[in-house]
């Protein structure tokens, strides 16, 4: 019998399969702090090749782990398997064509490896863009966005990825290809498209995606408000939403991250403010002006010292550069960081944020906060040095405590990074055995043998509920 590597090479060609230890090591992890081990890594170029890979993996008793750009933060693309049965990692980077753009319908068929920002750039001349804009949008792929149902700052007004995906062509675990969803608004049957989006590579591998493109807004205004306390910034967020204003984006940064960013990109952020809010309003000019006036007035009423409305596109771009450079700025000042992700009701932001600082202090972990305040999506950023014994453990302890207080406040485990491996064993904190069994039933309907990305999202043996029981071979 031929080896896995030989069979994959026979199916895809020599340049499309990697099996040497150095290459395998590269694909043993993603952008999370977890690591697994890959059996083989392959780079198919179309659905037929993905079908071939599925056939070979099945014949060898290996699971298949789909992977886009590897920017995921929850370990969704980390390959997990017992020694001798490591998964086949299927990388979509060579499926990177924009297949067709229909300007009239405002849709495009794209392959999964197309990068998020490349897609928006490719359709900008039509006055359109792909609305989901994760912070990693220069590097992350549309396929990865589909798998994680990704968000981003502008998803506050435009909705997350699932609202922008009309259809997916997927290779299923039996090797068949199915088109879920369609160009018409209500395809017959269950919304399998909706079930597939956000399934983190556990139900199949998307080989083409029909995305909805969104018109660029006629007017955009961006403003920065600085506050004497994090509480007053958080309360402004609730007041804005309650006033019936839905900004395109409403981002909050605390003083620690503002200082780090200002040192890095000199965006003119006030480094003596306890917190800043970055708000963007878009739409038609009348509504935009009225909403800007409301936000300015509410910010002042909640104690904002200064509210700066970007005067031109250059100033607006600089403010956004400051926001989007946050993680780069942190990389300069700490050897490692762990980016957390949880959601609370917007009305609980202020108190939960206070608890985040207390938890970090109690665990002797540095923390900064830069997050999507408008939809209550917290992103505490824990700084550490993994060479220091016990440092990563303290971060995990703090992260776990933060999750618990978010759930106690009526929140959820993840707003946009997904569950993956990282939060898999926390799922029983949010869902009952019956709830998890229902999710498992959906996965089994798609993939009865757990070929795709097993050990992710749902706790293994789904119903036992023990916390942090990572499978053998996982390094955290």
């Amino acid at each position: 019998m031929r080896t896995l590597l030989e069979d994959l090479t026979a199916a895809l060609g020599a340049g499309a399969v990697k099996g040497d230890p150095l290459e395998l090591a590269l694909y043993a992890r993603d952008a999370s702090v977890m690591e697994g081990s890959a059996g083989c890594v392959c780079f198919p170029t179309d659905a037929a090749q993905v079908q071939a890979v599925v056939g070979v993996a099945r014949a060898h008793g290996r699971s298949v782990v789909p992977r886009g750009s590897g920017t995921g933060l929850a370990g969704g693309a980390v390959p997990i398997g017992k020694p001798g049965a490591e998964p086949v990692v299927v990388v979509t980077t060579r499926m990177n064509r924009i297949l067709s753009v229909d300007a009239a319908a405002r849709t495009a068929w794209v392959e999964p490896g197309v990068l998020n920002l490349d897609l928006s750039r490719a359709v900008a001349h039509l006055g359109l863009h792909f609305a989901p804009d994760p912070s990693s949008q220069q590097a992350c792929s549309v396929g990865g966005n589909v798998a994680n149902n990704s968000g981003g700052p502008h998803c506050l007004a435009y909705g997350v990825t699932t609202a922008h995906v009309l259809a997916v062509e997927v290779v299923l675990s039996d090797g068949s290809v199915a088109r879920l969803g369609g160009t018409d608004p209500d395809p017959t049957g269950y919304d399998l498209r909706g079930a597939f989006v956000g399934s983190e590579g556990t139900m199949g591998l998307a080989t083409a995606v029909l995305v909805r493109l969104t018109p660029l807004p006629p007017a955009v205004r961006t403003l920065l408000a600085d506050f004497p306390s994090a509480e007053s910034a958080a309360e402004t967020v609730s007041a804005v939403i309650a006033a019936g204003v839905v900004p395109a984006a409403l981002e909050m940064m605390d003083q620690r991250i503002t200082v780090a960013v200002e040192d890095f990109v000199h965006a003119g952020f006030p480094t003596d403010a306890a917190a800043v809010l970055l708000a963007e309003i878009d739409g038609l000019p009348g509504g935009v002006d009225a909403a800007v006036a409301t936000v300015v007035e509410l910010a002042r009423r909640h104690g904002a010292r200064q509210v700066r409305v970007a005067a031109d596109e250059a100033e607006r771009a600089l403010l956004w550069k400051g926001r989007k450079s946050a993680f780069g700025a942190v990389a300069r000042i700490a050897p490692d960081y762990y980016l957390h992700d949880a959601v609370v009701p917007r009305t609980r932001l202020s108190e939960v944020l206070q608890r985040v600082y207390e938890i970090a202090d109690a665990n002797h972990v540095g923390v900064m906060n830069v997050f999507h305040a408008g939809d209550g999506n917290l992103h505490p950023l824990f700084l550490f040095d993994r060479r220091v014994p016990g440092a990563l453990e303290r971060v995990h302890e703090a992260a776990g405590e933060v999750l618990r207080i978010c759930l106690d406040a009526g929140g959820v485990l993840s707003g946009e990074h997904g569950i993956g491996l990282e939060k898999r064993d926390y799922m029983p904190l949010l869902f009952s055995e019956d709830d998890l069994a229902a999710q498992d039933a959906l996965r089994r309907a798609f993939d009865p043998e757990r070929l795709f990305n097993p050990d992710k999202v749902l706790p293994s043996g789904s119903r036992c509920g023990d916390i942090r029981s990572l499978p053998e071979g996982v390094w955290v």
Partner: protein
Amino acid sequence: MGLSRPLADFAAEVGAEGPVAVVGGRTQWDVGGPVAPDARLVSAPAGVVDHQPADMTVRVGAGTTVAELTEALAAAGQFVPLDPAQPGRATVGGVLSVGHSGLRRLRYGPVRDTLLEARYVSAAGRLVKAGGPVVKNVSGFDLCRLLVGALGTLGLLAEVVLRVQPVPAARRWLRGRADPDVVLARLYRPSSVLWDGDSVWVLVEGHPADVAELAGRLAGFAEVDGPPPLPAGGRLSVAPTDLNRFGNERQAGTFLAEVGVGTVHLHDKVTPPSPEPSVLDLNHRVRAAFDPDHRFNPGRRVA
């Protein structure tokens, strides 16, 4: 505020055995086919449980009428864009289970995008939670979207959390004659563009100045009270870019098309097309995973 009866009572009534069908306002009762006569009829709890204006979410019993929900949200200047034809009778659970979006889908998206959390009774008679009560959530698989449009064949909705929207400050319906695609292209995010092969109806909503400005872009259009009556025979789902051709092959007035969306309302009954075999198979597997004995809403078919 509060539910008409506890969720657990509803779950106990549904039980774990025998055919059961859930009744709302019977406004879309025949969608998917007639319910088998031997099915025991049950109704979901009603009532607005909790409305948080600053979170833009509301928790309601699935048996709540849309009119009651609308009234509860109005004080805070909010609403949920469900837009059924008969809000006084249609229930929230019914609108979600049938999954037909309202006439403002162009602006507010499909009805499936409003559902954040669902508590439903499973075929085993258990209360199951899907999704979560916040506006952004990727914790686990998206069962909520699967439940919308499932005609209660996967589980019976008991209580839901919905995303709410601010009520626009101004709104105006206009009617005129023009190429519907040209009208659509000329406007930024209109709430609705309808076409019957002869006239075009447009709904613009938002800030008064913007509404006036958009209305001014439509030369020859006159303000009207609202949309024309909706043909209630059946709905056809076509690609939005095929609508113009579709309409021009038909007699004006025999249909009403949602331009930019692709939903066509007809006087005649419509038999939905069958999905391709691999997708049909997947539909059957999903049904089998959630309701292996087909005890829920027997007779009503999704695919």
